[in-house]
């Protein structure tokens, strides 16, 4: 695992995340979110979870990001207007970050390096998904169907 690559990707991702949280234009923030997800996918690749990284890119860049930009398109009134910034939220976020970092750094059992591990193949994931996790898989399928129908009904024009 390459430290240099990790640092580059992490800095890139976090910068994009900060941009997504603070950019004034909503569209730019949404596109920054895409960059964040590409960065996270890269981190997944770095960690050896290629399949999850590809799935993340596939779902977030291909679907969720387009949904977000479409929503921005469909709610045009507030786009581009600055609504101010709630500094209280920033304080809370910084406090949470501080608390988390403090506890992570103070937990000695976390200061481990990665063990050697055989590569996780797609086949392996598929087998696990179809054996141990077959019920969760079905439930997720049901959930996605329900979400699809629910989203459709929510945005459907009301008949008069």
């Amino acid at each position, binding site marked *: *695992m390459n430290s240099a690559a990790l640092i580059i990707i992490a800095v890139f*991702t*976090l910068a994009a*995340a*900060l941009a997504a*949280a*603070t950019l004034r234009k909503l569209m730019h923030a949404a596109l920054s*979110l895409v960059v*964040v997800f590409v960065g*996270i996918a890269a*981190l997944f690749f770095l*960690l*050896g*979870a290629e399949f*999850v990284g590809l*799935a*993340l890119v596939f*779902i*977030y860049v291909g679907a*969720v990001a387009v*949904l*977000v930009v479409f*929503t*921005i398109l469909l*709610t045009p009134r*507030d786009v581009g207007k600055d*609504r*101010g910034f*709630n500094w*209280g*939220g*920033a304080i809370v*976020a910084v406090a*949470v*970050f501080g608390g*988390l*970092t403090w506890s*992570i750094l103070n937990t000695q059992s*976390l*200061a481990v*390096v*990665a*063990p050697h*591990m*055989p590569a*996780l193949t797609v086949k392996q*994931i598929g087998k*696990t*998904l179809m054996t*141990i996790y077959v019920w*969760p898989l079905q439930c*997720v399928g049901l*959930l*996605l169907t*329900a*979400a*699809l129908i*629910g*989203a459709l009904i*929510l945005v459907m024009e009301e008949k008069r």
Partner: protein
Amino acid sequence: MTPTLQIFLIVSAALFSTGLLAALSRRHAIFILIGIEMMLAAANLNFIAFWRFGPPHQPPTGVMIALFSIAIAAAEAAVGLAMVIAVYRHYHTTNVDQLDQLRG
């Protein structure tokens, strides 16, 4: 120097906090969703990291949970964005400060 688990966790914590920042500080409803997506991604990063740094030759539970979480997050995003559109249609605003009909 090879990275330890702590570095990944701190990256994840930073991402989580940034997501929290987006969700807490911005007024537009879509920012809240963006923040939530970032927080979920941070959680996924944690899962993957813990799997990678955990004992080898185990079922890849962390990976599985990350996959399911991605799927569920996609559903959440779809419903959430649909709600944003529905709310916009009804109140003609996406500013969450104005959506306070449930005020006590």
